[in-house]
């Protein structure tokens, strides 16, 4: 038996008794980042496949959602910073060993690319917006340029959007100090989950006909891949070193078993999988329900991952100190 007890007072805020530095803000950012990547990929897919006839929403209108979604995520990311006034420091250096630094700089590439992707189909998708832009000097010329290079832009979107989606997972998996996160599968898992949550947005926006079927079928496939990746993720923990097995225990018999399986896997993946089968057979209500559940499940995946990862640790000290005692000493 080994018992390790903190003999002196230590109760550092957000570090003790277990790490709690990141909460919903980071989870929401990772969720929105993945969703934005998915939106860009579907829009690029429709252009590269010349699917304007069969996928009009994805081809002409979907791309505009990406910067809105990503910006909402960036807002909560900013809210999470403890020293907000120093946010500009992300752009005064580039640290190649830091995934977060890569993420900050990739966003500098992603945002302009999002804009040109939108402009490449703006006249067809949002003629009113295109009209406003054409009234500005050079606006019409810019639209012409982007439309003329629509396929080139779509080709550029693919690697960067895949990178953005994978990055949201790598941000966590790069921390070897947190065994639950430290798996290379997190990158692909978050990418596929991001694409899945993006695939249900057109269903919520009310697209119909063949396009509705395309997104339902796509989401069905993506959920199946996501389930496979989650199984591989759990297997990689189960076959890892002692601290990985300990981390697995958190969702396999431990304190996060119920949230992980009953709040995420069942309502966020398995039930939508079933409902989307029914939706493909014409049940409209089940399609909408599945879409809502997929979005909620996508957020729950990030929320639980962020939280469980912080609980998994190499340290295992018992803390005797009661921080409330300190409050009594305060004037």
């Amino acid at each position, binding site marked *: *038996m*080994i018992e*390790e007890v*903190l003999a002196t*007072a230590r109760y550092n805020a*957000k570090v003790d008794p277990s790490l709690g530095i990141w909460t919903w803000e980071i989870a929401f950012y990772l969720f929105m980042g993945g969703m934005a990547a998915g939106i860009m990929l579907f829009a690029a897919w429709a252009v590269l496949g010349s699917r304007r006839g069969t996928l009009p929403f994805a081809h002409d209108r979907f791309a505009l959602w990406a910067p809105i979604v990503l910006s909402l995520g960036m807002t909560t990311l900013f809210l999470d910073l*403890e020293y907000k006034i*120093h*946010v500009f420091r992300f752009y005064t250096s580039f640290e190649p060993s830091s995934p977060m630094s890569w993420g900050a700089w990739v966003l500098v590439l992603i945002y302009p690319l999002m804009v040109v992707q939108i402009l490449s189909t703006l006249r067809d998708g949002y003629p009113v917006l295109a009209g406003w832009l054409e009234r500005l000097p050079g606006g019409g010329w810019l639209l012409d340029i982007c439309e003329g290079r629509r396929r080139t832009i779509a080709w550029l979107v693919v690697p960067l959007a895949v990178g953005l989606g994978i990055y949201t997972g790598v941000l966590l998996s790069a921390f070897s100090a947190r065994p639950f996160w430290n798996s290379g599968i997190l990158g692909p898992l978050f990418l596929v989950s991001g694409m899945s949550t993006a695939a249900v947005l057109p269903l919520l926006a009310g697209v119909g006909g063949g396009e509705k079927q395309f997104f339902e079928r796509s989401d069905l496939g993506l959920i199946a891949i996501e389930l496979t990746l989650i199984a591989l993720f759990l297997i990689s923990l189960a076959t890892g*070193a002692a601290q990985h097995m300990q981390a697995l225990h958190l969702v396999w018999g431990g304190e996060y078993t119920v949230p992980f399986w009953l709040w995420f896997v069942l309502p966020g993946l398995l039930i939508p999988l079933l409902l989307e089968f029914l939706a493909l057979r014409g049940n409209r209500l089940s399609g909408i329900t599945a879409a809502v559940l997929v979005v909620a499940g996508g957020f729950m995946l990030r929320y639980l991952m962020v939280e469980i990862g912080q609980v998994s640790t190499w340290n295992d000290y018992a803390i005797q100190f009661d921080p409330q005692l300190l409050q009594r000493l305060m004037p």
Partner: protein
Amino acid sequence: MTTFAMVIDTRTCIGCGDCVVACKNENKVPAGLNRDWVVEATRGEYPNLETEFRSERCNHCSHATCVTSCPTGASHYWKDSNIVLVAAEKCTGCKACIAACPYDARLIMHPDGYVDKCTFCHHRVDQGLEPACVSSCPTHCMHFGNLDDRDSIVSRLLRDRRHKVLMPETGNRPHVYYLT
């Protein structure tokens, strides 16, 4: 790279916590926050129990994951040594370094929000002095010095005595050593 090390004799440490108080005084660490702490580790089955006290802090790793994960370069090595510092003026409070430290040795300095940690009292080391915790230890169980100097007290102790570091399997190459 100069390698500074702290060597702590668990056979003479009595867990009094003077090192913790000395650090708080020297570095003006706010109430409720700690850069160092003492762990009482008991192993065995009653009545065959063995207890060791360990004064713990940042391990000033030569391969510090907190430094490699910092997106702004705020976490850095001091003067080409293994002493890991945080430049408050570059810190955004993103907390990546806190997540990256397997020893949970970092803390957030409220209300400003920058991340703080043990500095091995580099301001004292710069003047040829020992860190405050080492100089205040009443049992002289703590030692500090340059590992590159074969004649330093830390080199000699590590040469002569059985020792360990905490969780070497993290790969961070920590430099707080415990004589056992």
